[in-house]
């Protein structure tokens, strides 16, 4: 009897010990864009993130979601609130690079772990890298570099390039030029949030370029493509996936058909995780997922994988578990490089119409196991 009691007590102690190590509650603060012009991006990230947590059945994550309305000052206030009064362990969610630059350096300096589901400004990939900062999407240049590489294979010789004047826009054009071997007909920086591109389209018409590379995320891309189609310019458009994303393709309509774009994710990437993700996302929210949704989903799964192998209180072990990236990504192979940014394949997609729905299909791989140009500058 005595022996049994001791065994029982030991078992209970062990069990409690195990559950504690296994399921120490983690508090996650998500600052993302849920209102204003860029809301559909933030909503997709949030929905993807919440879906992964729901599917895992893990109840030890407390998620606090805040809306930054794409305003840097508001994002900084929210970050102070999450860190100082909510005392979160981990932060995530930011869509826009100018907001990321306002929030992330301060948050990681205060010892918070930041998992970026989208923004990947170059300043944080090179000399400004930090052991607490992980990017689960891409470094900003990646998709643009891939488009530069694709433009060479497709035989384009003279490209007209444009992007908004903010960190990600500058990263975009730098990335494209890094890989594109042809001539640049003209390079234009537009206002962030600009909705009228008549002046730029007139210049494209007059430039004699054989291709147009543009990076205009969200509503900016819709406006550009509709006006481009209306102007009757027939120079082919090339761009990163951000302007051909599931959430906005329906609003663009026929103007986007046939346009090639580069992405680390597509709904038809052939692996079990991705198939299950696309199906369950559609069942849960009644719409097709976008790449932003896949990034939110992957970010949550990365976090869950780390929680499964180390407690958050043991920070070095937790960081090592994050770095191992031992989770099944929707985009197939995924691992972190030395600067905590992804090494992954980047695909070429084409905009098609499936029934009544505009979507993308994979047509090839632009760059395999691609890292970024800044990793060498990161001393970590």
């Amino acid at each position: 009897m005595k022996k049994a009691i001791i065994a029982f007590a030991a078992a209970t102690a062990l069990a409690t010990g195990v559950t504690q190590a296994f399921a120490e509650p983690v508090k996650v603060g998500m600052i993302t864009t849920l209102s204003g012009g860029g809301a559909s991006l933030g909503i997709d990230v949030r929905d993807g993130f919440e879906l992964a947590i729901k599917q895992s059945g893990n109840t030890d994550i407390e998620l606090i979601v805040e809306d930054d309305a794409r305003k840097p000052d508001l994002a900084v206030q929210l970050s102070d609130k999450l860190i100082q009064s909510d005392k979160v362990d981990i932060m995530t969610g930011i869509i826009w690079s100018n907001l990321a630059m306002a929030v992330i350096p301060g948050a990681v300096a205060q010892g918070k772990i930041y998992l970026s589901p989208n923004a990947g400004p170059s300043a944080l990939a090179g000399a400004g890298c930090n052991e607490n900062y992980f990017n689960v999407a891409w470094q900003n240049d990646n998709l643009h570099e891939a488009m530069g590489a694709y433009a060479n294979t497709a035989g384009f010789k003279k490209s007209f390039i444009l992007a908004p004047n903010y960190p990600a826009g500058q990263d975009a054009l730098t990335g494209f030029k890094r890989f594109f071997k042809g001539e640049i007909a003209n390079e234009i920086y537009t206002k962030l949030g600009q909705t009228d591109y008549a002046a730029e389209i007139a210049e494209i018409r007059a430039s004699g370029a054989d291709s147009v590379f543009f990076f205009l995320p969200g509503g900016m891309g819709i406006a550009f493509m509709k006006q481009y189609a209306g102007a009757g310019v027939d120079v082919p458009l090339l761009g990163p996936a951000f302007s051909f994303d599931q959430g906005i393709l329906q609003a663009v309509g026929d103007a986007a058909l046939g346009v090639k774009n580069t992405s680390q994710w597509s709904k038809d990437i052939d692996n079990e995780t991705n198939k299950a993700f696309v199906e369950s996302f559609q069942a849960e929210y009644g719409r097709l997922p976008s790449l932003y949704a896949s990034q939110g989903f992957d970010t949550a799964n990365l976090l869950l994988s780390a929680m499964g192998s180390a407690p958050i209180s043991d920070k070095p072990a937790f960081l090592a578990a994050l770095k191992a990236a031992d989770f099944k990504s929707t985009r197939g192979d995924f691992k972190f490089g030395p600067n905590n940014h992804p090494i992954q394949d980047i695909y070429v997609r084409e905009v098609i119409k499936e029934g009544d729905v505009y979507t993308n299909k994979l047509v090839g791989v632009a760059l395999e196991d691609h890292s970024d140009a800044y990793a060498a500058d990161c001393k970590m």
Partner: protein
Amino acid sequence: MSTALFLEQLLNGLQLGVTLFLMAAGLTLIFGVMGLINLAHGSLFMVGGFVCAAVAAATGSFWIGLAASLVAAAALGAIVEIVVIRRLYDRDHLDQVLATFALVLMFSEGVRFLFGSFPLYLDPPAILAGPVTLPGGLPYPAYRLAIIVAGVLIAIGLGLLISRTRLGMQIRAGEADREMIAALGVDIRFLYTVVFALGAALAGFAGAMIGALQSVQVGMGEPVLILAFVVIVIGGIGSIRGALVASLIVGLVDTMGRFLLPTLLSGVMEASAARGIGSAIASMLIYLLMAVVLVFKPKGLFPANA
């Protein structure tokens, strides 16, 4: 730089100008007659875009959508005036700004609740979808041309309405002395509702027209609203004529600045630096213009009641 490109940019500036006029006319009319600063004007622009997109999707006709957006914006404007704005005429401008800003938030959330956060599909009607060739062989988007024509017609119509009709006379009288016109037996409350609905209809019309060119999404009214405020400050607050002239100036300066500045600067500095600095200055240009105008004419180009 070719002449064709220059002419095309002039037309683009003109098109931006008439669009801004549709927004600024309503804003300045409401301020001139009722002394009210209405931040929610951009929301009426957004409502116009959403109603047009929703009705066009349901009926398959852009034109029905356009008509519906006019009616919806005017009706909403009248309701808002009766329910909320009416209580604000005697308050100071800070109260008006706060209350109408609250309306902006409510409209944005309301539209999101009804239509969702994803942008809606709205294309120009098929007849205006492609480019047309102007005399001289310049191809130009037919839809932008239609916006210019519609804007000019509305500007003329509004001018006639205010200078030639009984309603216009009452509006002008209300601007000059609202106690006196009330004493003369004009129903000033009704007049205010009509003016507000008229301003709302102009904003809704602009929203529907522009929605087919840009994107129909929550928050689409705010960037235009800021430009419209710049326009009425330059033109002289409360003056329709000032709004027209300033709209065209702002439209042309903004478009030509974006187009010409990088080219001009590349004459004096390295090309990539010229492009960066040129586009940065171009985006400040209309605010610089506003500052310069205010230095020389603190009440704007055509001050009302001058």
